[in-house]
Each structure stands twice: as structure tokens, then as C-alpha cells.
């Protein structure tokens, strides 16, 4: 009885040691994964910062004004002036949509000349 107990205890210790060993390695893998993710996030932040900086630089008001001047022939952009504001009643209503033609009248040159001759 006691012998069996000793054997079982020893087996349990071996089993727990094996489990702890595995957990340890899993944890270390997870930590290194987290570390590489942080590195990735950091690099992404850096890239994002660079892109945002570039966006701001390319959209700086001086450059936009120069571009508007350069492309004035095509775009005709002017600084926003008070005249740009309009009243609601200056906006036209949308044109009614053209309905599909359901009852077409066939006309040809001969028919037309025939009709003119009849008249």
C-alpha cells in the first residue's frame, strides 16, 4: 500500500514537472510574441506618424494655394469669399427623371413625305 502511494506521488511529481515545463515554454513564447507585436505596433506608429506628417506637409496651406493658382485654368478655384454663400431659393429643383418610352411612334422618311404629299 505504502509502496503504491510512493509510486503515485513520484508519478504526480513527474507529471506536474512536465506540465510546469510546458507552461513555462508557452509563457515564454507568448511573451516573445507580445514583444514582437509591440515592436510591430511601434513601427506602425512610427510609419503612421511619418504618413501623417507627410499628409500635413503636402496639404500645407501655402502649397494648396500654389496648386490652386497653377491649375486655375482647369479648376478655377478662388479663395472663399462672402459671395460664395447663396440662398436656398437660388438652388434649382432636380429635373424630373425621363420616363421610359412605352408607346413609340415609328416614323420614316417615306412615311413623312407620303403624309406631306397627302396634305
Amino acid at each position, binding site marked *: 500500500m505504502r509502496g503504491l502511494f510512493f509510486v503515485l506521488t513520484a508519478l504526480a511529481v513527474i507529471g506536474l514537472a512536465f506540465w510546469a515545463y510546458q507552461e513555462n515554454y508557452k509563457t515564454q513564447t507568448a511573451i516573445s510574441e507580445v514583444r514582437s507585436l509591440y515592436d510591430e505596433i511601434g513601427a506602425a*506608429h512610427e510609419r503612421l506618424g511619418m504618413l501623417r506628417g507627410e499628409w500635413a506637409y503636402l496639404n*500645407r496651406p501655402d502649397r494648396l494655394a500654389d496648386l490652386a493658382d497653377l491649375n486655375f485654368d482647369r479648376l478655377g478655384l478662388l479663395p472663399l469669399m462672402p459671395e460664395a454663400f447663396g440662398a436656398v431659393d437660388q438652388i434649382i429643383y432636380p429635373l424630373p427623371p425621363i420616363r421610359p418610352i412605352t408607346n413609340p411612334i415609328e416614323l420614316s422618311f417615306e412615311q413623312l413625305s407620303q403624309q406631306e404629299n397627302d396634305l
Partner: protein
Amino acid sequence: MSRAPLRPLARILKARASGENPDVIEAANRARRHEAMADNQRQRAEGRLLVLGLAFFLAFGLIGLRMGVLAASIPEEPRASAVGSPIIGQRSDIVDRNGRILATNLQTYSLYAHPRNMVDPANAAKGLAEIFPELKEEELLAQFQSDRRFLWVRRQISPEQMQAVHDIGSPGLLFGPREMRLYPNGPIAAHILGGASYGREGVASAEVIGVAGVEREFDSFLRDPANEGAPLELSLDLTVQAAAEQVLEGGMALMNAKGAASVLMDIRTGEIISMVSLPDFDPNNRPRVLTTGDQSDSPLFNRAVQGVYELGSVFKIFAISQAMELGLVEADTLIDTKGPLSWGRFRIRDFSNYGPELSTTDVIVKSSNIGTARIAMQIGAERQREFLDSLGFLAPTPLELAEAPTGRPLWPDNWSEISTMTISYGHGLSSSPVHLAAGYASLLNGGTRVEPTLLRQTTVEQGPRVVSEEVSALARDMLRQVVVRGTASFGEVPGYAVGGKTGTADKPRLDGGGYYEGKVISTFASVFPANDPKYVLIVTLDEPSENSGSEPRRTAGWTAVPVAAEMIRRMAPLLGLRPQVDLAEPVGVTLTSN
């Protein structure tokens, strides 16, 4: 286990036969047995002691080793326990009220040298001098051949330059990562942003510190990693600021001024939407501070905040408003304007003779010094001082700029009766354009004090009351009259009901003796729309002169007012203000949907 008998029969018999005492044999045997037992026990005890000693030795050895490892290893952050977003170590961005970037960071590289590792210093120096034209080959070579271990070559280099240096192939030339502060909009809002430079520098990183403006004022906030990269939100509007700078720069050139400043302020919150000081600079490449001469000639000088000048007649509205608040005059009370007004040896004159009497409104509309001085005499020195203090004219502005405390207003130590009279029309008290903007905003927004701020506000905090609603409305009406039929007739912008007051003040001589002839500061302080006040705009030109006529005209009505009108025309639509159009006939039925 077999035990040796204590009285072995053979020996006992032999002993008895020879007449010896057999007990001796027993005693000897017993002693031998005890000795063996003691030996055995000692051995076991020694073994146990050895095991115990070994265990203690291992335990202490382990602890000692661990301590050694802890002491010798580099500290590391416990990554596994970090939750949330990772720490962002960069300096925070600065953005405008709509989130457009005013300042951000860029990852660049620095270039340093370890001269001892150089194989061919002459070639390295030659290559570097070719890549960086501002470096001298001989100086570099001398430095590389001295016995220095380390030297900085360049603080920041571009990727192209980095590749070129790489191509030199010298093992003594090394790169370190370096964060660089970038102001993508160039000189726009330069005085507000200030600039940044490097503090403690290392090979692996360098500390970016603010040197002026909000960069310096909010340095600890911008560097605080606890913000996790949250930007600093300013009250500025980048588009409006750019338009203001463009128009003001044009106006300054047209009016031949040597400097100009403008402040656009939200009348309720005190937020500064745009603040310009010209000439300006590029914060990416901040010029050096002047070591000689007048600091106000440097482009670093922020005229809007640090430029403390006597601003002239723009102050008249304060005296008139206070007199109306105190019930001393009404808008149509007639004021004696016979000139010149003598007080001791002083004589107060008007620009031209406006006749014997003017109504209070006309004192403002025609800008009569005599009329204002007479009203100020009724108010008295003490009450005038208290009123100007309540508008913030007697302390530096609480603006969130490192330079703000240097914009300290100047006033006479002895606030005498003559000081009261001159201060009422803006001479004797020097203040900055931001002071004036805050004063006008407080007076005209319905009469509650506003504090100027550069940070975006989300709520309107009602300040203490300065004047009543009625007086505020009357003051706005008077300022509107100035534009409609007074000195600021060029200030009319159709649809925006501009109201304002001009001010032309002679520049005091630097040596302290009197005023310059023909050098003025011309100011236009305006509010728009006057019937529903939203913004206050102050425009100041330094030494302007409008030369289209036969003789140069320097009054604000000819210089600052047209510039301010053009600024309002450009900025008001950008601020989302619709022009108020008087419709010829009322609009009938308006269809809203079909």
C-alpha cells in the same frame, strides 16, 4: 543480522577451566559491541550533516548566484504584465481646433564619428565634405586625426544623406536614431508654436525640448508618456490663420509698414482663432536671438503678445462705456469739445476742429480727444483704473505662451488727473494687441469678462460682469457708427456689419524723450457682426505710410482699416459666417420638399 554472543560458550568454558573470571569476557564483548554501535551512529550522523551542509550550500549558492545575476543584468520592463496600448515615447503632436497637424515628429538619424575606428580619415573627411557642403574638409580631418574618441558630425540627416554616408564605407562613421520636430506648415503660426531643440543628447536617442511658445509652455505635457500620444489641441484654425497671414502680409507690403500684428478672438470664449505677427520665421529653422539692438526688430518678437505700445484712440470706447455704465452720460448727451483743452501746461487737441459740441456717439464717431478727456475727468482716476483693471489691462495676458509674462503693460506710477485724461484716448497706457482684443471682447460680448486663451474650449464660461448688457449694445452701436459714417469708413464689409474704432498713436522715442515725427502705430479694433457679435479682430501696423496721395497718409483709417476689412472679407466665410443680406422683397412660400 547475526549478533556476536556476549558470552561465547567456548571461551567461557576455556576461561573457567583456566580459573579466569568469565565476566571479563562478557564486559569486553559488550564494550566492543557498544563501540561498533557508536561507530555506526557517528557515521550516520556524519552522513546527515554532510547532506544538510550540501543542501545549505546549494541553497545559499543559488541565492548568491541569483543576486549576482540580478545585480549584473540590465533592468527590463515586465512585458507580460503590461496591458492596454504600449507606451508611446514620442513627444505629443500639436493640432489646431479641427485636428490639423501643426507640429509632429519625424524619425531621422544622427551622424557621429569614432575617429579611432577610422581606417582612412582623409577619405571620410573628403566624402563628408562632399555630402554636407557646410562642413569643411580640413576641419573634419583635423578632428578625425586628433585623439578624440567621439564627435558629432550632424544632428539630423535625411535618408538620402544617410545612404551617401553609408556609401563612404568608413567603419568610424555611425548613425543613431533621432527624433526630429517637424512643423509641416512652415512659418504659419510660428510665433505661437515657438520651436524645439535638443536637450540631453545620447547616441541612442535625444531629448526634444520646446524653446518658445506653446512648445515651451506645455513642455511637460507634451513629454508626458501618460498622455499616450494625445495631441495638444489649440484654439487656432489653420485655414483662418493662413488666410490672415497672407492678407496681413500683403497689407503690410502695401502700407509700407515694417511690422504688423493681428488677433482674431472668439468674443464669448476668448479663444484665439488666429494670431499673426509679422515679420515671422520658420520654426523648423528657428533664427538666433538677437544679441545686439532692439529685440522688437527680430522676427522672433511676437508683436501681438510682447509688443506693448500705446494704442491710441481705440481706448476711447472704454472711457465712454464706463461713463455710460456709471450713468454720467447717455448716448446722445452733448459734450463740450471746444479746443484746445488746457490742463496745466498740457494742451489736448483734436485732429481737426469738430465744433463746440458733439453728442457722445459723435465723440466716438469723430474720435474727439477733447470730448473723451472731458468724460474721463468726470469718471476720475480711481474708477478708471479699476475699470481698466477689470478688463485685464493692468497685468500681463494669461495667454499660454512662454513669452506672455514679458508682455507687461506700462502705465504711469502716478495715475494723476492728466494721466486719466490721456489714458482715456489711449496715450500713457501701453498694452499689447491681445490685451486690446480681450478688452474689446469683454466689453462687447454683452459685458462679461473673457480671458484670452490658446487652448480649444468646449464650454463657455461666463466671466464676471464688466458692464451691463445695454451699455455693451450701445458700445457696439457706436462702433458700428464709426464704420458707417466715421473714421473707419473703409472698414465696411458688405454683409458682415463691421463695427470698430481706429487708433493712431505716435511712436515714443526709444531714449524716452517725446515722440517720433512721422512714425506711428496704427490700429483698428473691430467686432463683427456688430448686431450679433461673434468675433473681435485687432489689426496693428507698425510705421505704416500710405503713399498713393500727394503726401503720405499714416492714420489708421487709411492704413489699418482697409487691411482689416480685407481680412474680415477673407476670414469670415472661412469661419462659417453667412453674410447678412437685406432681401429686396420678402421671400414668399419656400418649398422645402416635393
